[in-house]
């Protein structure tokens, strides 16, 4: 079973919910084929982000893509958003069954 899995990058971005539109649209422009977003809560350098008010809400964006696209997405985040917004981003290798779904056509 595992031999059928092809490795791709999974980027997980936890950030302020107001950035959803900008980051997802920019990722698609950079070549990502899709993304998944869900609401998130937690505590970190910016204190408790409990979602009690729209401005206190976090989201978790997940994007599976090729390594070159992952690099471009990370560059975009560092250049445009890291300075002023609450962010946690990490990248992991994941195995996918249909790699063509996650690469640029």
């Amino acid at each position, binding site marked *: 079973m595992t031999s059928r899995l092809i490795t791709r990058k999974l980027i997980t971005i936890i950030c*302020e919910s*107001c950035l959803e539109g*900008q980051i997802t649209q920019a990722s698609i422009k950079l070549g990502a084929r899709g993304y998944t977003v869900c609401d998130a809560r937690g505590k970190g350098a910016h204190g408790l982000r409990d*979602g*009690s*008010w*729209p*401005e206190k809400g976090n989201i978790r964006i997940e994007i599976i893509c090729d390594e070159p696209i992952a690099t471009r997405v990370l560059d975009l985040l560092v250049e445009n*958003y890291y*300075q*002023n*917004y609450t962010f946690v981003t990490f990248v992991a290798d994941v195995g996918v069954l249909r790699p063509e779904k996650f690469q640029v056509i």
Partner: protein
Amino acid sequence: MSDPVILFFVLGLTAGLCRSDLKIPGVLYESLSIVLLLAIGLKGGVALSKHNPADLFAPILIVTLAAMLVPIIAFTIASYFGRYKRADAGALAAHYGSVSVVTFAVGSSFLVRQSEEFEGFISVFLVILEIPGLLVGVALARWAATQTRWGNLIHEIITGKSIVLLVGGMVIGYFCGEDGAASIAPLFFGLFKGLLAIFLLEMGLVTAGRLAELKKSGIFLVVFGILMPLLGATIGILTAMVINLSVGGATLLATLFASASYIAAPAAIRMAVPEANPSLSIGASLGVTFPFNITIGIPLYYTFSQWLLGANQ
């Protein structure tokens, strides 16, 4: 006799300060805000259907111009006396330049309890005043910056939930008139105060969470949060005198000028002025100005309006 909606706010505040596990689910908060915004829009639209909208052109222009003074005053006080950097002073200006729908709703419910009549078309001002103050605030914050995406910002404000629902409700109310709106009146008008009470319970909980943050920001923000609504209300009452509003109308216009946004403005400012510290402006508007307005401010503006306008009527 106290207004029950204010007591619901106090209940929320107390529960929050006691660290109760009481929580209003986010979905309920969203649903309540949709009903409240539509109800205010509908009410304004029904009132507007009894007027010729063209007659409102001059008052709208005067009110809009007067309202632009509020963010300029807020910016000046925040930068000179508060010594905040440009971005933070501009963010504060945008919050105080914009308006709070819930404060307006509490104001109109206060006037109903006092059996004081007011012009129904005041809610047209509510819709219009949400926008210019925000833009002036952003302009002040970004005076020298080059990368403000004005198109995106204006699109975001105009297509934001609150404007869409308020304007949409108003258009529906205008075309249906009083008789047409009668079929939906039980939900939007009959249940209005009960729904507002639950919304204020949530506002109390949220405000309690802000008080701790406010302690870190210092005394200036507390003074600013009380001084600004008083200055805004004064401009509001003077403007109401210019456009010949009733005592009730003047109270509501003063309430609008005194109120600070804590829903639309934070979202817009976070995108337009990302370097501003959001906890400063939301701490002042939600932690100080909102509770001040609904408890002390509105009755005070009513007394002022009676004093200044009462003799003429």
